[in-house]
């Protein structure tokens, strides 16, 4: 990726959902078919072209493309080639765009990676999750620690200079020290980007069933906080920027440009089953079922499963909770412009109070969460929006 010419921040992002996985991980609630056949991929690709055609003229040129899933690396080189061609045929992509693909460590074969490079893919995000075999098998991953290491090496050898690694912590039985070992292993590769997520147990997953049975208790708050703070500390010590609750970049230019669009109401288009899109205050999402999605497209219909037009209150709540997740925080001017509200004048002196408690700083015209503030970003957002909807005459009644 060329970082010298950052395009206009408002250019939209394109997301493609690849709904296939070789095996299904027991904690994952993303939509994907597993097992699947090449015939399924062909039907999906055909339908994806039809879906893209619906939106061809609706969006200005994109400056990020993100191919996620599911497991994009489960596509063969030629399938990925067809996908890239379909994208380029239907949409204008800015020069110097960020073009990311998610890669499963088990799939990082040099041949495939070389094709990615040829297709213009300049960023890869590898679902490493852990460098510990026991943890990986608990998580039901099909790769082991050795494969994880080899995958990262292969990515580097293929010439990728923007690599992101996804890691999970807070796995039952895992100590903070064990987790920090995985983190150290990751740091040896000097990845440009790290996503460190606490394991969340989502309804509809096998892990959720276990939790209901009491086998997989949630992490106690204190421990969850310790994981969070230690992760932040270790990575900041190593020169990383903790720029979002779960995301770290080696420097500001290496933050995920695509994800940022989700967080600041920039338009984005999502293609494929279960993908979400946002344009001009309207958000819509596709149905999750691959067959239903494909059938709708074959019959000439948009495969939309639902949509909403954000009310001012909802937009306001989103700005709050999304903004408070990022180190950039909420721009006071920007917030006033978008919502007509001066956050510094919040009822009950909430900003001063949060600042006094070390949760926020007001800096450079923005409300920025500290690391401890990020750890309670949801709570802060609720608190702020409560006081907005209680204040007389303010048009920010969330939930209307």
């Amino acid at each position, binding site marked *: 990726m060329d970082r010298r010419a950052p395009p206009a921040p408002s250019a939209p992002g394109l997301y493609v959902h690849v709904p296939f996985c070789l095996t299904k991980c027991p904690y994952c609630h993303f939509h994907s078919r597993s097992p699947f056949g090449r015939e399924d991929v062909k039907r999906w690709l055909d339908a994806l072209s039809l879906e893209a055609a619906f939106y061809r003229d609706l969006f200005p040129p994109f400056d990020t493309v993100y191919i996620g899933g599911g497991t994009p690396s489960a596509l063969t080189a030629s399938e990925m080639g067809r996908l890239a061609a379909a994208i380029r045929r239907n949409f204008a992509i800015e020069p110097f765009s960020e073009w990311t693909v998610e890669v499963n460590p088990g799939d990082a074969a040099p041949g495939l990676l070389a094709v990615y490079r040829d297709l213009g893919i300049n960023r890869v995000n590898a679902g490493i999750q852990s460098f510990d075999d026991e943890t990986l098998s608990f998580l039901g991953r099909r790769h082991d620690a050795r494969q994880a290491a080899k995958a990262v090496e292969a990515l580097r050898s293929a010439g990728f200079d923007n690599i992101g690694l996804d890691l999970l912590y807070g796995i039952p039985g895992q100590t903070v020290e064990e987790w920090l070992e995985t983190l150290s292993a990751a740091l040896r590769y000097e990845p440009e980007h790290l996503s460190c997520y606490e394991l969340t147990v989502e309804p509809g997953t096998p892990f959720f069933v276990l939790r209901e049975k009491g086998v997989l208790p949630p992490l106690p708050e204190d421990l969850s906080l310790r994981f969070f703070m230690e992760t932040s500390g270790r990575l900041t010590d190593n020169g990383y920027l903790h720029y979002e609750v779960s995301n770290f970049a080696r420097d500001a230019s290496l933050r995920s440009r695509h994800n940022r669009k989700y967080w600041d109401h920039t338009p984005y288009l999502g293609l494929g089953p279960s993908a979400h899109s946002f344009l001009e205050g309207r958000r819509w999402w596709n149905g999750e079922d691959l067959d239903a999605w494909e059938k709708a497209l074959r019959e000439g219909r948009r495969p939309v499963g639902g949509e909403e037009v954000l009310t001012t209150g909802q937009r306001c709540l989103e700005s709050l909770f999304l903004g408070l997740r990022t180190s950039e925080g909420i721009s006071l001017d920007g917030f006033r412009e978008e919502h007509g509200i001066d956050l510094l004048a919040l009822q009950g002196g909430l900003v001063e109070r949060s600042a006094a408690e070390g949760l926020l700083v007001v800096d450079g015209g923005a409300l920025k969460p500290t690391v401890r503030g990020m750890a309670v970003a949801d709570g*802060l957002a609720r608190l702020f929006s409560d*006081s907005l909807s209680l204040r*007389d005459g303010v048009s920010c009644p969330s939930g209307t």
Partner: protein
Amino acid sequence: MNQIRNFSIIAHIDHGKSTLADRMIQFTGLVEDRNFKDQILDNMDIERERGITIKSQAVSLPYRAADGQEYTLNLIDTPGHVDFSYEVSRSLASCEGVLLLVDAAQGVQAQTVANLYMAMEHDLEVIPVINKIDLPTADIERVMEQIDGELGIDPYKAIPCSAKAGIGIEPIFEAIVKKIPPPKGDDALPLSALIFDAKYDPFRGTIIHCRVFDGRVRAGDQIRFMYNGTVYRVEEVGKFLLSRSRTESLGAGEVGYIIAGVKTVSDVHVGDTITLDGRPCAKPLPGFREAKPVVFASIYPIASDDYEELSIALEKYKLNDAALVYQKDSSVALGQGFRCGFLGLLHLDIVQERLEREFNQSIVLSVPSVRYRFSLNTGEVLEIDNPSLYPDPAKIDKTEEPYIRATMMFPEKYLGTVMKLCLDKRGSNTRIHYPSPGRTELFVEMPLAEVIFDFYDRLKTLTQGYGSFDYEIIDYRVSDLVLLDILVNGEKVDALSQIVHRDRARERGVHACDRLKDEIPRQMFKIAIQGAIGGQIVSRSTISPFRKDVIAKCYGGDITRKRKLLEKQKKGKKRMKMVGNVSIPQSAFIAVLKSDTD
């Protein structure tokens, strides 16, 4: 009119009034069996959920008696709980007789006696009925002895029945027809009808429930409310046949409803007399004695903007709950509200819930209090039921609190535990009476403040459900009182203040802080709770803040899902009132009074 009988079913709580009403309704075929549901007259959700009657409910039953004649029986099912005795007393004013139910297993209980006295005050014919004879623990002979010895009624008049199994129902009908006198009154006289209840209907205006004593009223009549002289044109009259059923007219001796398009809620007063504008009666009917509230608390809207709406809701609500009294009030911490008087804590609870359910109000109530008396050195005597109006201690000469005489009935073996409970509650002047073998009747004088809160529940638990309780206020007695304030993050929350006995003050302070710690959910900031007496801190507790409250992953573009989660969490907080920087849940205000055991 000779063919009409007006009667109420009265009894101690749970002795089977509503179930007997069920059987009588079914007996007359008023409802088809497949449409029937148990306790059919308990038609409010809140009654069905709690399994108790809250409102008196009238229904007219057609009955062909053994003498071959057709009768109209106006039955009123009444509540049994002490807190709703005002409902009972108003129902009795429309009747000539009562069925007094006694549970065959439990026997005569405190409210059996209290209700019998009420019926006697109204000079009503009393038909004793022994219910639940199907129970294996039923002891009809023993109950007959109690009816004789404790109620002073000829036990051979008692009709044994099982409301549940439908045994002995017909003899009850025959007794009603034969023993209860038909209403007196004269169709030809000017109209006089007593309003005993009312309900606001958004489409029809106020529905007036009344008993006609003299005269006749029909659609088209110009009626006058004697209390304030306002005149309305009658749109519809009718009877209660489970639902409202329009009739051509209502005549002397009949119970029914009048709809006259009354949208000005304040024109209708329960206890007022309705007459004809063109031909008024000479003087209003006696009406009802005022309800005497014993517990007081303030109601505040959760969002201050909703004060006006709450005011309108209360006015409409009061039509259907004549026992509620209220007036404007305001709190430093909670803003504008209403000071309300209730007949007890259950009544308070029901008012709160009905305002929320039926009128869609989001409210909180301050800590309930009884009414205390303060003599000042200026010679002034103040009656204060609101701790925020506590007088300047330097000016107080004498403090007094209301005392009651409690009557309790329970099997003898519980005497020890019940006595201990009474002593705990500052009881004195105990008198014990053994009305029949194995049964104890206990009379104790206690401060009202000690019994209204959780005394009855404790008594029931201690006696495994066999204890019953009734009380009357006897007088005010000198008592060393102090004001216990609660500070949240250093700020006094007047709605949490209590007036307490000095000997108990510290203990109450500790208790309040502990309960608030349990009730107030953790928030973003640390919350310090303190109890203070006269500026001196006597207790404290701390609620630690959240330290981790964020979802790890904001999934792809699915911001909607995450926002909905937050919205849901916000909704869950709706029933909390922001006091300064702290959200205090509705439940906290009552919780400070409740003991740890419930």
